C-alpha cells in the first residue's frame, strides 16, 4: 500500500500558477491577457466564483470568462452570489459553464427562467447570500475566484473601498483551500489606502482602467412614492414600530419602506417616537434614510455594501457608519447578513405574491429573481439566545401559555405592500407561482422567499394583520384575506370572522390605529425628491445622473 499524498491540492495549485507564469509580471497581468490567464488556470469542471451580487460586479473578468476557448475551459460549476450581467448567462449558452448555484438574479430574472426551462443550466439551488457563503466552506468551495477591488499594490494587497461586500468571504474560502484568486482592480497603486484583503491571498491582479460596475439598487426616488405607500407606511409605524418599540431592524428596498424612512423625521417624530424606534440598523446606505440620520434618529448602521453616490456622505458620518482608517465605508455582506439574522428584532420588506397562509415569493412563472438576503433577514433565528423587548413581546403573543423563562421570543418578520402591485396585479394569491415553477423544473423545493411560519405581520393599505395572534389555519387565512382589500383573495373573506379578528386586534384597520387615510399625503415626506435628499445631506450625496432632474 502506497503512502497517501496529502498535498494534491497544493500541487495542483502550483501547476496552475506555473501554467500562468509567462503571462504575469509578478502578480500583474495585462488586461489584454486576461482570457489567456483564465484558460491557463481554470480546469474543466472547476468550481468558479465570479464575484458579483446585487451591487458590485467583477465585470472585466466576466467578459474575459465569456471569451475563453470552450475547448479548453468547459463544464464549469459557477458558485456565485449574483447572476446579473449578460455574460453570467452567456457562459452557459456556450458550454463554458454547466452547473449553477447562486442567490440573486434580479436583472436576468426572465432570461435565467428561459434558460432553466430550456435545460441550458443545471441548477443546484437558489440560496440566500449567507447560505451560499456557508456552502463555500463546506461543499461548494471555489477552485478559482474572480473578484473585484478598487486598487491593488504590487504585492497584491487589495483596497475594496466602500463596496467590499462579498470579497473577504470569497477570498477566505478560495485562498485557504488551495484555490486561485484573480482580482480586477480599477488601478494599481504604490500604496493602497487601506488593506481590505492581504496580498498573500491574491495570486493575480489585472488593472481594468475603469471602475467596476455598481448598480444603484438601493436608491428610491421620493418623487415616485404614492399616497397609498405613505398610508401603508403610517400604518406600519403606528401598528408595528411603535407597538413593539422596534429599535434594531433591517428594511427591504421597496417604496413602502422608503416611505417609512422618509416619515421618521415627520410623522413618527410627531408621535414622539424619536429614540424609541429605528435606531440601530443592518442596512445598505439608503439615500432615503438621510433625513432621519440628519435629524438625529439613527445611532448606527452596518451595511452589506455601499450605494452609488453615498460615499462622501458616509465618510462624513463616521459616527453612524462603519468606516476604515482611510475614512470610507467598510461594508461586509456576510457579517451584515449575520447581524440581520441574529441582532435585529425586525425585518420588513415587500414581495410580489403572498398566499392564504402567508408564504411569500418573488418568483413568477416567467421570472426567477432569486432571493438575495431576504429569506435570511426574514426568518426567525432559532439559535438566538439574547432577549429584547420586541422579541419577547412577539414571542408571548405567539405562545401566551408557555412559562416565560422557557418561551422563545420571535423575530418580527413583516411583509408590507399594496394589495395591488404594478399593472394592477394582486399581491394576494390562492397559490404561489413558485409552486408551478417547482413542478415545471422538478425542484425538490418551491422557491419560497419567506415561509408562512416565519411571517408575523402583513401590512397593506387595508390595515395590519398580526399572524402571531392567530390560533389556527382558518384564523390565519381570514387574517390574510382581511387585509387583502379588493383582490379576489380579499373579496373571498368571511366577513363575520374578519370582524371577530378585528375585535381581537388580529386585524387593525386604519381607524383602529388612529390613522385617517385622507391624511396620507406626500407633504408628510421629509424629502419629496432626490434633490431634497441632496439638500438634507448638505451637498454630500451625489446621486447618479439617472436620478437627477437638475
Amino acid at each position, binding site marked *: 500500500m502506497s503512502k497517501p499524498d496529502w498535498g494534491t491540492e497544493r500541487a495542483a495549485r502550483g501547476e496552475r500558477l506555473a501554467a500562468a507564469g509567462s503571462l504575469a509580471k509578478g502578480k500583474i497581468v495585462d488586461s489584454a491577457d486576461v482570457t489567456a490567464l483564465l484558460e491557463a488556470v481554470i480546469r474543466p469542471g472547476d468550481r468558479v466564483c465570479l464575484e458579483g451580487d446585487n451591487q458590485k460586479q467583477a465585470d472585466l473578468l466576466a467578459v474575459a470568462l465569456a471569451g475563453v476557448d470552450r475547448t479548453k475551459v468547459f463544464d464549469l460549476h459557477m458558485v456565485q452570489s449574483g447572476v446579473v450581467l449578460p455574460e453570467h448567462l452567456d457562459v452557459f449558452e456556450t458550454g463554458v459553464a454547466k452547473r449553477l448555484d447562486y442567490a440573486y438574479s434580479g436583472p436576468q430574472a426572465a432570461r435565467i427562467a428561459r434558460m432553466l426551462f430550456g435545460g441550458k443550466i443545471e441548477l443546484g439551488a437558489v440560496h440566500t447570500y449567507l447560505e451560499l457563503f456557508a456552502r463555500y466552506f463546506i461543499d461548494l468551495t471555489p477552485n478559482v475566484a474572480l473578484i473585484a477591488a478598487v486598487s491593488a499594490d504590487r504585492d497584491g494587497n487589495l483596497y475594496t473601498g466602500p463596496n467590499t461586500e462579498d470579497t473577504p468571504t470569497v477570498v477566505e474560502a478560495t485562498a485557504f483551500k488551495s484555490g486561485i484568486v484573480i482580482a480586477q482592480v480599477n488601478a494599481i497603486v504604490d500604496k493602497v489606502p487601506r488593506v481590505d484583503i492581504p496580498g498573500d491571498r491574491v495570486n493575480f491582479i489585472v488593472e481594468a482602467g475603469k471602475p467596476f460596475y455598481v448598480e444603484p439598487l438601493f436608491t428610491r426616488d421620493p418623487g415616485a412614492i404614492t399616497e397609498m405607500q405613505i398610508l401603508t407606511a403610517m400604518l406600519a409605524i403606528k401598528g408595528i414600530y411603535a407597538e413593539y418599540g422596534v429599535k434594531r431592524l433591517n428594511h427591504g428596498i421597496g417604496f413602502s419602506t422608503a416611505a417609512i424612512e422618509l416619515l421618521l423625521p415627520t410623522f413618527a417624530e410627531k408621535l414622539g417616537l424619536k429614540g424609541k424606534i429605528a435606531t440601530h440598523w443592518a442596512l445598505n446606505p439608503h439615500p432615503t434614510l438621510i433625513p432621519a440620520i440628519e435629524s438625529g434618529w439613527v445611532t448606527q448602521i452596518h451595511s452589506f455594501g455601499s450605494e452609488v453616490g453615498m460615499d462622501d456622505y458616509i465618510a462624513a458620518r463616521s459616527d453612524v457608519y462603519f468606516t476604515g482608517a482611510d475614512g470610507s465605508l467598510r461594508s461586509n455582506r456576510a457579517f451584515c447578513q449575520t447581524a440581520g439574522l441574529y441582532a435585529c428584532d425586525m425585518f420588513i420588506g415587500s414581495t410580489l405574491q403572498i398566499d392564504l397562509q402567508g408564504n411569500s415569493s418573488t418568483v413568477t412563472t416567467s421570472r426567477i429573481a432569486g432571493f438575495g438576503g431576504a429569506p435570511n433577514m426574514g426568518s426567525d433565528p432559532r439559535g438566538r439566545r439574547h432577549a429584547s423587548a420586541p422579541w419577547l413581546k412577539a414571542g408571548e403573543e405567539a405562545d401566551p401559555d408557555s412559562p416565560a423563562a422557557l418561551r422563545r421570543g420571535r423575530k418580527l418578520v413583516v411583509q408590507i405592500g399594496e394589495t395591488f402591485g404594478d399593472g394592477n396585479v394582486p399581491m394576494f394569491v390562492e397559490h404561489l407561482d413558485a409552486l408551478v415553477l417547482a413542478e415545471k423544473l422538478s425542484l425538490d423545493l418551491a422557491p419560497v422567499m419567506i415561509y408562512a411560519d416565519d411571517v408575523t405581520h402583513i401590512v397593506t393599505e387595508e390595515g395590519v394583520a398580526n399572524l402571531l395572534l392567530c390560533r389556527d389555519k382558518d384564523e390565519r387565512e381570514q387574517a390574510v384575506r382581511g387585509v387583502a382589500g379588493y383582490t379576489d383573495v380579499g373579496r373571498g373573506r368571511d366577513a363575520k370572522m374578519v370582524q371577530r379578528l378585528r375585535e381581537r386586534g388580529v386585524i387593525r384597520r386604519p381607524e383602529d390605529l388612529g390613522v*385617517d387615510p385622507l*391624511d396620507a*399625503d*406626500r*407633504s408628510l415626506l421629509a424629502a419629496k425628491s432626490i434633490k431634497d435628499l441632496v439638500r438634507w445631506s448638505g451637498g454630500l450625496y451625489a446621486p447618479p445622473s*439617472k436620478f*437627477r*432632474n*437638475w
Partner: protein
Amino acid sequence: MTAPFLNDPAAVSWYEASARKRVVTLLDPGSFLEFIGPEQREMSPHLGIFDLPKQFDDGMIVGHGTLRSEKIFVAAQEGRFMGGAFGEVHGAKLTGLLRAALKADIQTVLILFDTGGVRLQEANAGELAIAEIMRALLEARAAGIRVVGLVGGRAGCYGGGGLISGCCSALVVSEQGRISVSGPEVIETNKGVEEFDSKDRALVWRTMGGKNRRLIGVADAFADDTVGSFRDATLALLEQPGRFDLDTLQAEQTRLEVRLERFGHCADAAEIWTALGIEDASAIPAMAAEDFVAIADRVQEASHDAR
C-alpha cells in the same frame, strides 16, 4: 384642514401640484373662477376613437381671478393628463381665453405651461391649435396685453408649447422646468446618442432645464419650486413695462445673432456658462435658488421682451 388641501403658496411645490392647485394657490385666495369648467364636460371628441380615457377639462383649465388685486386671465395645463399635450378642445380653450382678453379689458394673461407638445391622437387639430394660439397671443400682445408663461412642471414645455412660450412677453422658470421644441428622445432618435443622450438626465437638465434657460435669456426670471416663489417672480416681471414693437423684435434678432456667434461653438451648456463669466460653471446645477438668482441677475443680457 387635512394635508391634501393645504394651500399655503410658500409650502406648495409647483412641480408636485396639479394644474388646478397651481392656479388656485397662485392667484389671490378665493379669486379664481373657471370658464368652461369640468362640469360642462367639454371633452376631447377624438380620444374615444382610440379607447383612451378623457378628462372633464381636457387637461386645460382657463379662467379669471386676481393677482395682487389686478384682474387677470389665466390658463393652466395638467401635465399628467396625456403629458399635458395640446388637443382640439385643450387648444381651443387657450385660444378663446386669449381672444377674450382683448374684449374684457384685461392687461395680463398667465399661461402655466406643462406640456410635451401636440397630442398624437389629434395631431392635425393640435397643430392647428398651436398656430391659432400663437396668432391670438401675438394679437393680444399687439394690443398691449402682457402674456407671461410659467414653466416648472413634470412635462416641461416642449413641442408646440415651446413655440408658444417663445411668443410670450416673458417667462418664469424653475430648476425643474424644461423649455425646448424637440425633446431629448426626439433629438437622440434623429441625431444619435453621441449627439444627445436622452437618458443622461443631468445633460438634459443642463441643456434644457430652467437654469440654463435663465442664463441664456430664454427665461426672464427664475423661481424656486414653490407656488409662492412663482407668484413673487411673476409680480416682479409685471412691474416692468410691456413692449411689443418693431424695435423690440429687431433688438432681439440682433441679440440672437450675437448669441449664436458667442456660444455657437460650445459643446455643452457648462461652456456657455463659463463664457458668460461664471467662475465655477460646474457648481451651477446643484446651486440653491437664491445663490443662482444672484448670479443670473449679474450675467443676464438685456431683455427685449422676446426670446
